[in-house]
């Protein structure tokens, strides 16, 4: 068995070709997921663009777009000549709210179940609503200027 050794970055990206989710968005989601679960914390360096390109064989512009998106969200910041670094964490913010959100989701799940949706139906509905949500948010964020000041000096992350 061969074990691919990482390049020292805390996380490594993977791609799900069958998911239908655009590649850059998959990278964004994986960073957010890692932030939520504590694999990434502020100050950590995200995988270098070149390393991501070499391991996944994807367009470098796609990686840059994902990192840009994370900067716009205030989760990461580029340091010229060094790379992109984690700026904020998601787990801190989420902890107190998480219980509330989980409870309301459980309520919704019960409603969906009562309406006759099975597990796959619920997943399909949730996934499609979620995708629409991010799509809309992505489109509104690419259309308008970045509203939060989180992307200062974040150009040219590589």
């Amino acid at each position, binding site marked *: 068995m061969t074990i691919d050794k990482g390049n020292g970055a805390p996380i490594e990206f993977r791609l799900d*070709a069958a998911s239908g989710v655009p590649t850059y968005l998959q990278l964004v989601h994986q960073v957010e997921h890692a932030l939520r679960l504590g694999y990434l914390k502020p100050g950590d360096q995200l995988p270098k663009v*070149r390393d991501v*390109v*070499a391991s*996944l*064989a*994807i367009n470098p*512009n796609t990686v840059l777009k994902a990192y840009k998106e994370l900067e716009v969200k205030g989760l990461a910041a580029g340091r010229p000549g060094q790379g992109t670094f984690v700026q904020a964490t998601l787990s801190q913010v989420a902890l107190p709210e998480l219980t509330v959100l989980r409870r309301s989701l459980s309520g919704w799940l019960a409603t969906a179940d009562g309406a006759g949706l099975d597990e796959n139906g619920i997943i399909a509905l949730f996934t499609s609503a979620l995708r629409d949500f991010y799509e809309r948010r992505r489109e509104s964020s690419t259309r308008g200027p970045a509203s939060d000041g989180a992307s200062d000096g974040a150009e040219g992350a590589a």
Partner: protein
Amino acid sequence: MNMIEASGLGKRYGSTWALRECTLAIPAGHVTALVGPNGAGKTTLLNLAVGLAEPSAGQVSVLGGRPAGSPAALDGIAFVAQDMPVYKNLSAADLLHLTRNLNRRFDRPYAEARLADLGIPLKRKAGRLSGGQQAQLALTLALARRPRLLVLDEPVAMLDPVARHDFMALVLTAMVDDGVSVVLSSHVLAELERVADYLVLLSHGRVQMTGEVEDLLATHRMLTGPAAEADRYTERPVVHAGRAEAQAHLLVRAGVDDPVPPGWEAHPVSLEELALAYLREPGAGARPGPARGRHAQPTGVTK
């Protein structure tokens, strides 16, 4: 700056036009995919751009206005032809030597370092390397010329999935390291989405669609709804309609802000879906941005 710019470009072999009235501009900084069925003119267009063929009509220039085939153009372009041509009886070292002497610019240390990274022995004859290694050797020879534009004709068609992945990784890291722009032809649609961010769709010798992948995807939607109402949808141009007894899928030129008729669902499209839809409807054409008064009639409904 445009890496390849063509205007009214055409190439005729005997009485057959392999490429006709081709006008396009491929900008720098992208991986551009040239997509089309066999015989669409992909190889002809690439051969004209790299100076291996003379146009029968129109002009083509590269690297920001240098006439294709001129010494200034040749210096900045590297081309890997279909089926990865390397002389099978020469060793990798001989091929390095040969390529260095046939070109004005050749970075030998770069080539040797790359081959060492790839684990390709310099002494072995090219014909005894695996298909994937031959492809990587051909690519390394091309990259060692330190081009600004790398042109690849069907680079991965013959390779197995692992070799395909490794080959594209080598191409794309060169883009990161050296800022190389890439133009490649392919009919492996499924893999293009990861690799290409600019698309040129060729069909029957003509450019059918061109633009940044992101823009093209943002201006198309798949509408799913009742088949009985499919013909009544006229709000936006329909590129391709697929219809069963009850349900219909319409690939339409519409953005997220365009209204979705009641009872219909709108989904984003993948690059593969988009390219297939256009290839199935050779009459449909699109450029990114607002439709330019070309409100096409709903085309060929397939049952």
